[in-house]
C-alpha cells in the first residue's frame, strides 16, 4: 500500500477512489492531499483536503466541495507563484531552542503557517507529480514553523497575563494558563519538525516529536503563571511576555460627529477614545486597563503581534 492509500485508509477510502471522484479536475495539473490525513493524523470523520496547483486564475480561496461517501472533500486551487512565494519566506537562519530549532528574522502570518504546514506534508495524488517542497528544505521549514509557534506562545501568554489582571477569579485565569501551556507544547513539537495542523492534534504531534511524557504531563497540569515557569524546560521561562508583544489597531476610518468622534473598524463603530494605539501592550494596559485591551481584541478592533526584534533577542 502506498502512502496516499495509507492516509485515505483512515476514512476507509483509497487514492483510486479519490482520483475517480475528482476526474477531469486533475487533468494536466498536479494535485495533492493536504491537511491532517496527509500529516499522518486524521480519523474516520476527517475531511479530505486537496490542493490543485494550476496556472488558471481559479484561486478564489473558496473550496469546491465534493463527497466521497460521507466524507467531505474540499478542493482548493492555488497558483504556482503562491507555492514559490511560501518557499521564499522560509527562514534562512535559525538558532537552537527548547531542544529543537527556531527561525530568526521574521514571523510569517498564521494563514501562511497553515499553508506551509499543508504544503510541506502534502502527498501527490498522481504518481509522477513532483513534491511541492524539496526534501532538503526540512530545516528551513522546521525553523519557520517553530518561529510562528514561538510568536504565538508569547501572544497567548500576554493574553493570559491580561486575563489574570482582569478576571479577578483564579479559576478563570487557570484555564487561560492551561491554554498557554498547550501553546508551549505546540512550540516544542514544531521546533522538532512538526507542522501547523489543527490544534486538536497537539498531543499526537508531541508524541511523534518524541517529547518526554513527563514534560508533557507537567505542562498539562499548569494552572498558574508560576506553574508554567516551573514546567518549562528552558530559558524562555524567564521572558516577560508583556515586554515582547505589541498591540496594533485594525485599520479604520475616524469620523467626527460633532458631539463625539468614532472609529469605523471592520463592521463596527467604537468610541475613538477607547481605541488602542500602536505600541507596547504594557503601555496600552496602563492607559486602557487590561479589560480595555482585551475588549479591543474581542471586538477585533486590534490584534497582538510578537515583536520580531524582541524574539530575535530572546533566541540570541
Amino acid at each position, binding site marked *: 500500500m502506498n502512502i496516499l492509500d495509507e492516509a485515505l485508509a483512515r476514512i476507509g477510502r483509497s487514492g483510486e477512489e479519490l482520483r475517480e471522484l475528482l476526474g477531469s479536475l486533475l487533468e494536466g495539473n498536479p494535485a495533492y492531499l493536504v491537511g491532517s490525513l496527509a500529516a499522518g493524523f486524521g480519523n474516520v470523520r476527517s475531511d479530505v483536503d486537496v490542493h490543485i496547483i494550476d496556472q488558471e486564475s481559479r484561486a478564489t480561496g473558496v473550496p469546491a466541495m465534493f463527497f466521497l461517501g460521507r466524507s467531505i472533500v*474540499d478542493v482548493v486551487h492555488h497558483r504556482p507563484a503562491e507555492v514559490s512565494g511560501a518557499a521564499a519566506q522560509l527562514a534562512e537562519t535559525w538558532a537552537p531552542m527548547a531542544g529543537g530549532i527556531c527561525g530568526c528574522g521574521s514571523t510569517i502570518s498564521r494563514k501562511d503557517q497553515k499553508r506551509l504546514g499543508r504544503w510541506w506534508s502534502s502527498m501527490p495524488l498522481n504518481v509522477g507529480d513532483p513534491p511541492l517542497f524539496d526534501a532538503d528544505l526540512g530545516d528551513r521549514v522546521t525553523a519557520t514553523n517553530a518561529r510562528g509557534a514561538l510568536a504565538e506562545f508569547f501572544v497567548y501568554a500576554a*493574553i493570559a497575563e491580561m486575563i489574570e489582571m482582569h478576571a479577578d*477569579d483564579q479559576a*478563570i485565569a487557570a484555564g*487561560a494558563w492551561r491554554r498557554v501551556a498547550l501553546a508551549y507544547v505546540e512550540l516544542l513539537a514544531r521546533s522538532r519538525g512538526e507542522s501547523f495542523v489543527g490544534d486538536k492534534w497537539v498531543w499526537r504531534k508531541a508524541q511523534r516529536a518524541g517529547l518526554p511524557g513527563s514534560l508533557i504531563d507537567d505542562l498539562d497540569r499548569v494552572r498558574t503563571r508560576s506553574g508554567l515557569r516551573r514546567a518549562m524546560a528552558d530559558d524562555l521561562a524567564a521572558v516577560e511576555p508583556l515586554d515582547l508583544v505589541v498591540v496594533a489597531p485594525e485599520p479604520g476610518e475616524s469620523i467626527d460627529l460633532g458631539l463625539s468622534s468614532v472609529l469605523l473598524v471592520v463592521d463596527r463603530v467604537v468610541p475613538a477614545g477607547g481605541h488602542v494605539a500602536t505600541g507596547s501592550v504594557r503601555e496600552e494596559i496602563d492607559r486602557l486597563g487590561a479589560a480595555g485591551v482585551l475588549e479591543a*481584541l474581542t471586538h477585533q478592533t486590534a*490584534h497582538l503581534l510578537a515583536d520580531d526584534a524582541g524574539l530575535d533577542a530572546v533566541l540570541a
Partner: protein
Amino acid sequence: MTIYPTAWILSTGMDLAWHLADEVEAGVEDMDGALTSGDLATAFESARYTLNAVALAWQRVDGTPLSTVEPEFLAALGHARSRALATYASWPAVSELTEERMGELVAEVRGQVAELRAAVPFELPNLRSPDGLMPGLRAARLIDGLRARHGLPPFSWPGLMT
C-alpha cells in the same frame, strides 16, 4: 413562542445559526471521530474547542462579535470572564483520561450544545454534509434574499473560505 425582530434574525440570529451548524457541530464531529478511533487526547482537545465555541455563541447573544480564530478566541473568553475557562481548568490531565472519564466530559459538552441549540431561534442545515448541502443552499438563497430586501450585504459564511 419567542418573537424576534427581523434585523436581529438576519444578523445575530444568522451568526448563531451558522456558528452552531459549522463550528459547534464540527467540534462535536471531531470529538466523536476521535473517540471512535480510541484517540482520547484528540477527543479531549476537540471537547475543549467545542466548549469554547459554545461559550462564544452565548457571548454573541450579548453583542460580542463571533470569532473562533486563535488566539483572539482566548481574549474573548477572558474578557467575558467566561466560566468555560474555569471548566477547562477543572478537567483532568490528558494522561489521567480513561474512556469512562472522557465519556463524561463528552456528555458534559453535549449537554451544553443542547442548551445552546434550544436557545438559537432557528437551525440551518449543515452545508458540509451530504444530506445538508442542497437544503443548506436553498436556505442560504432565502436568507440572502431577505438580507438584500433589508439593505444588508450577503451573509459572509465564515469558515467556508480557506
